[in-house]
């Protein structure tokens, strides 16, 4: 449902005066500022939730004990967990509000919003892309001409929807067990614990391995792709990476609306530092999970 129809003018980056700057130096902007901020908040809250939650899930490991004490105890960890749960849900709701604002601004119907080619919703092209990708993987075809969003990006996007719903609802049960059991039976707390914990394991496991590989670690992007933080990518790279979208923008003559000046190197360095921290925490969590589940499980 993310839509690049959104006017670049609304972002903080002013469209550059094309005649003053060489066209080659300009970069293509893929993400709005709000989206980037939301993703950063998402990263911070997600890692915080994972770390605090896993102290309980893997309480039998020394790491959990260490971390729990580092966080100021189980109660403090609990407050952090609930605070970032609130942040994450806020991110989610902000995004939904943003979507509906955009819908109203562009006077689209709900149907148009969902089924436009730039929408996050799966469509026929994704089926073609999946088949094409698999063929490409095994050397039976060219790299498919991916559009605005690839199918794996769409999967990640909806995984968040699923996760927010499943983890959020069970989390609320565990947050307010007395209130919840006025409607639900007592054993639902036990069930909610299992679902909350295992779904969180799935989410962290998936994000810190599959998502990391898909976006950062796959060799052509290695070690990381900072586009989600900077919002910018070089036009040349963009042309090759998302040929379908490039072609469409070129054809409609709107390409220049998305060209922006690159960030100064200091900003890029800051972004990379943040990226490295996030990546390292993610990997640490994976190592911890593997250690806890394979070597320390009792």
């Amino acid at each position, binding site marked *: 449902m993310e839509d690049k129809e959104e006017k670049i003018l609304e972002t903080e980056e002013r469209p550059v005066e094309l005649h003053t700057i060489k066209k080659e130096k300009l970069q293509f902007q893929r993400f709005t500022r709000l989206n980037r901020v939301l993703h950063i908040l998402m990263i911070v809250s997600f890692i915080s939730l994972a770390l605090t939650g896993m102290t*309980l899930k893997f309480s039998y490991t020394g790491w959990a004990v260490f971390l729990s004490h580092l966080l100021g105890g189980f109660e403090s960890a609990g407050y952090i967990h609930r605070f970032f749960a609130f942040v994450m849900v806020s991110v989610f709701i902000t995004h939904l509000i943003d979507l509906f604002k955009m819908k109203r601004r562009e006077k689209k119907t709900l149907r148009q919003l969902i089924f436009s080619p730039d929408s996050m919703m799966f469509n026929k092209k994704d089926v073609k892309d999946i088949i094409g990708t698999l063929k490409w993987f095994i050397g039976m075809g060219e790299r498919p001409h991916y559009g605005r969003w690839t199918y794996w990006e769409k999967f990640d996007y909806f995984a968040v929807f699923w996760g927010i719903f499943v983890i959020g609802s069970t989390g609320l049960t*565990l947050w307010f067990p007395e209130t919840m059991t006025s409607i639900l039976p007592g054993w639902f707390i036990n069930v909610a614990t299992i679902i909350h914990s295992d779904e969180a394991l799935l989410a962290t496991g998936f994000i810190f391995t599959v998502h990391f590989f898909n976006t950062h670690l796959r060799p052509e992007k290695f070690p990381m792709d900072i586009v989600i933080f900077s919002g910018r990518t070089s036009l040349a790279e963009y042309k090759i990476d998302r040929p379908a979208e490039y072609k469409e923008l070129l054809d409609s003559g709107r390409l220049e609306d998305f060209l922006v000046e690159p960030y100064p190197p200091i900003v890029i360095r800051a972004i990379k530092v943040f990226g490295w921290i996030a990546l390292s925490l993610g990997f640490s969590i994976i190592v911890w999970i593997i250690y806890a589940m394979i070597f320390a499980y009792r």
Partner: protein
Amino acid sequence: MNYRSYGMLNKETIISSFSKLLLFSFLILSGSDAIAQSNDDCLTCHGDNTLTAKKNGKTISVYVNSKELKASVHGDVQCVDCHVDLAKSDFPHKTNVAPAQCGACHDDEQTQYAQGIHGKRIAKGDPLAPRCQTCHGSHNITDIKSQSSAVAPIKIPFLCGSCHREGAPVQVQRKIPESHILENYSESLHGVALLQKGLAVAPNCASCHSPHKILPPSDPQSTIARQNIAATCTKCHAEIETVHRKIIKGKLWEKTPHVLPVCIDCHPPHKIQKVLYEQSVANQDCLNCHGRTNLKSKDGRSMFVDVVQLQNSIHSQVSCSQCHNTVNPSLERPCTGITSKVDCSICHAQEGDQFSSSIHGQLLAKNDPNAPSCEECHGSHHVLSHTNPVSPTFHTNIPSLCAKCHREGEPAAVRYTGKEHDIIHNYVESIHGKGLLKSGLTVTATCTDCHTAHHELPHTDPTSSVNRKNIAATCGRCHYGIEKQLENSVHSPTVTKTDKKLPVCNDCHSAHQISRTDAAGFRLSIMTICGNCHTKYAESYFDTYHGQVSRLGYAKTAKCWDCHGSHDILPVENPDSHLSFQNKVQTCKKCHEGATRQFAGYFTHATHHEPVKYPIMFWTFWGMTGLLVGTFFIAGVHTLLWLPRSIQYRKELKKKLSQGDEDSES
């Protein structure tokens, strides 16, 4: 014969003498054909006060004062009744006359005399030994009750003293263990009463030594033999046992004179005084030597006794000789009689019994060099009451006292092979140790409260206060209410009949590391302790939020006993149980204020490993696991396929991008 019956028997003797006399007269009268010498016949010669005879080469007077004879108890007795060998002889009779035969009438006394030391010496021909007439006189014997009698009580000390006084041949030439007998006696309580106050019932020599069967103390038949002393003294001092109850416990004194001190150990013979010790082996006598700071034994030990210390001790009223009771005042150096260590049990009999059956006593009996004796803990001359704060046995001083041997590295700790280590340190850090030593609570349990003061035994001994069987009772001495709760709980052997080991106090609370039950360390460790037996429940507990938080090391969450209770644990079926249907919600409410019946339906020990007991959880878990595995499988395959292609694509991309640069530059 003894003092009390002496007077009585005396009467009997007189009566029997009279009857014998009558019988004898009768026989004489009926046997008229026999030659009968009348007293007048005898006095014809012996009434002459110049009449002498030769005996053993000496000239002796053989005059008989007829007036005295007439006035004597034997006034009506014929001369020949006593001088029986002259009964049938003609006059003037032969000169070598046998001694008068008192035994013809006084046969009991004669037998006793013959068994006594005096009789035996006579039989051996000892010229110093006394005969009947030595004491009783001959023709002038008066009624024993008469003040003029030679054996009147008031005269006896001097009568005996005529031989047994200092310097007399008997005292010099014969082995008499006591010295200054007459002097000592006359100054003693008994002597003063008799001789100065004229109290005829006060004991004289014969009262203790018996009148006729006098025997040395070494003879077991002697009235003054060690085992008979108590019986002899109690003839007069009948109620003395109640006075000395602490020592003799009824008849113990008479039964065990070899263990207990007998009368004369404290009240030396012949010197008996009200203020007895000054006159006995007085402390001052001992301190003449032992008051010297440089006094050393042959093996170099200091033999100095600090008199100030002694006077400040609990034994300030006890004389040296009461403890060093083998001291012998009749020896030149009385203390040479001391050959063994002080046996405190002569007074402290109960403690002595307990100690000798304790491990300390057992080891001491085996001559273990490290085994403590009384002295080790109580000190010797400076023994203080355990209620005195400076005493080593004062409540707060006991841990450091026991530490002398039981501290890690000290002999007792080295010898010990059990599991309890670092006990002194652990105790000091324990709730009891802190209560006693930091808060100064003298009622707090110290070593001896659990292990007893004198009856310490290893916990393996069934009679030990710290044996599994007795632990609850031992702790219950202070924690009575808890013991009662435990007694009715599921952990009590009276409630649960099982072969398995039921927990006792120290299984959960430990022995020397007992901590406050609200301390985090204890709250956390208790789960492991419960888990030692309730393995499955402990494991499933750790699958829940409560368990996870606990495992992270935080105590502020429900632990076993927050729900189950501690000493009052009951089966869930019991309505009084904390977890019975009636009480469960209330129990949850202790932490979860808003708890409802529905909320209490939470499975506190649920695990997803039991499909039968917890099917919903089991299937939820496997559902989630399926989702997880499925997702990762698809994503994993996708990624693995992508990886080699991506490596290749990286190169292609680089080439394309550099081409693009060239294009744009050209």
